[in-house]
């Protein structure tokens, strides 16, 4: 379809419609894409969906993937480039219930606790590099293999549970509040582990052959994110997201937007979407150290940004 209509674009998200795609949804719903002359078909992601594969198969022209996905794919010869880094702080954090004086601020506080990890997921990579960096032996704490069943956490069998802070984090927080309990988060980036999350990517082919579309699209996405993160537009953005994700009440979405803002807007005077090369390199090093990639990938050509 994209071949027949050159203005039409398929955009593959990393996950389902939720606040992590707030800017993308806003760009669509508020007509930013249209104002750039783009017709965009946004498609949800999922466990079986992989934007990088879709790019290679020509099923999508743009997509969202986390840095570890990108680096791993490039290590295996995938030809993709990064246009923008949406999340400056990885939303993947650990939630815990503040009860019995439990406080986890520093990595050392993890000792003796039972911590949920998704084996094979990037929370595993983050936790492992944290433990390595702070020389904590994995024997000092208990790891629990996480899957879609949350009961071990609710029952207190597991102390810390990996969540996306801006999504499940908010929902769980609400649930706990209803139960009269307070939710806290442990954020690995405060301990210096910077593992890059969602970024905007495209294939090298599209990048080379259709620079204008790439430039326009990137700019539209960033404009979308700027709009979505604008506190004044919060309720309209929330409504737009709710239309696509009717399962989540608007009140929750608004809280999620607030949480997302803190993760997306860069410190200092850098603009939304700024690529943090050092964080990418750290991500690469973590993957390399844990044997998740076989060789040292050169990050620099990867982080192309929008074409001039």
């Amino acid at each position, binding site marked *: 379809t994209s071949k027949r209509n050159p203005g039409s674009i398929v955009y593959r998200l990393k996950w*389902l*419609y939720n606040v992590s795609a707030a800017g993308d949804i806003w760009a669509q719903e508020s007509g930013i894409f249209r104002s750039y002359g783009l017709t965009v078909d946004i*498609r*949800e992601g*999922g*466990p*079986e*969906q992989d934007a990088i*594969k879709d790019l290679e*198969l020509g*099923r999508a022209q743009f997509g969202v993937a986390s840095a570890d996905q990108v680096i791993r794919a490039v290590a295996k010869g995938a030809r993709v480039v990064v246009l923008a880094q949406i999340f400056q702080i990885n939303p993947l954090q650990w939630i815990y219930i503040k009860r019995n004086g439990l406080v986890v601020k520093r990595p050392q506080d993890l000792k003796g606790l039972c911590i949920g990890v998704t084996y094979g997921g990037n929370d595993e990579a983050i936790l492992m590099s944290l433990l390595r960096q702070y020389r904590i032996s994995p024997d000092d704490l208990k790891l629990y293999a996480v899957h*879609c069943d*949350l*009961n071990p956490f*609710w*029952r207190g069998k597991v102390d810390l549970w990996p969540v996306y802070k801006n999504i*499940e984090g908010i*929902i*769980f927080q609400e*649930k706990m509040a*209803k*139960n009269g309990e307070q939710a806290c988060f442990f954020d690995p980036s405060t301990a210096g582990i910077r593992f890059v999350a969602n970024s905007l990517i495209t294939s090298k082919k599209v990048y080379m052959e259709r620079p204008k579309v790439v430039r326009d699209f990137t700019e539209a996405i960033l404009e979308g994110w700027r709009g979505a993160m604008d506190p004044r537009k919060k309720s309209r953005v929330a409504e737009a997201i709710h239309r696509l*994700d*009717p*399962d*989540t009440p608007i009140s929750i979405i608004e809280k999620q937007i607030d949480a997302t803002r803190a993760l997306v807007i860069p410190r200092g005077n850098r603009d939304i979407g700024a690529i943090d090369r050092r964080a990418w390199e750290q991500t690469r090093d973590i993957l390399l150290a844990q044997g998740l990639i076989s060789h040292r990938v050169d990050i620099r050509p990867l982080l192309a940004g929008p074409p001039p």
Partner: protein
Amino acid sequence: MKILERLFQFFSIYIVALGLLWAVKIVYGFSDYLIPSPLEVLQIARENGLLYVKAVLNTSAVAVAGHMIAIVLATAVGLVGRLNSWPGSLTRIAAYNLQAYPIVAVAPIIFLFFGDGLSSRLLIAAIICYFPLLLSFIGIFAEPVEEVEHFYRMTGRINWRLELAIRTFENLDKIITVIVGSGTLAMVGTIVAEFLAASQGIGYVIRKALYQSNLAKILVALFLIGLCSSLYLSLIETIGKWIKARLTGE
């Protein structure tokens, strides 16, 4: 009548199951995290009811189509698979061996080739429900009904269509049972496909609910799934009965 009966059965089972769940909740004093309160379930039903009904209808449509495909597929494979020549044994072998792979493992390859559209959902639904069908069909098609076929064989009239007709007719009850049974599997298959990769249908709803650890939503979804399945199954049963009555002359 059959439909009412099935519906009644379904409601009873569902209510008993819910009752048990809540009994457990009360006895063990589980929090609302673990098992949602009746109020929450009702609220969810009120808020998302229409949305979920649409989703489950969408799923059912795909499931019915997948079921049809599976029946045609199983008949075809069963027909070829009953031969003793090499295409027959090859088909049998492939059919049996392919089934050894769980769909969750094969799904990545299916999605790789078919994308995440309707075709993947259909294919997965069909694959999941076709195996029980195939098993029965190969069994039924391969077993001669000697007393009836003798005449046709003797007079040189026998052909695969006639054999198929005779063996199907003699085993009509079994075939209807299997088709009804596999109907539920078609539903299951579609939901699994949606669960793994789709942005429509009730399986997609369940996936989202699971990520939010929202059992109330799952309970509402299960209710609708059960309802749709019951209706579909009684429909097939009715059709089966009608066909049988037609063929055997009431």
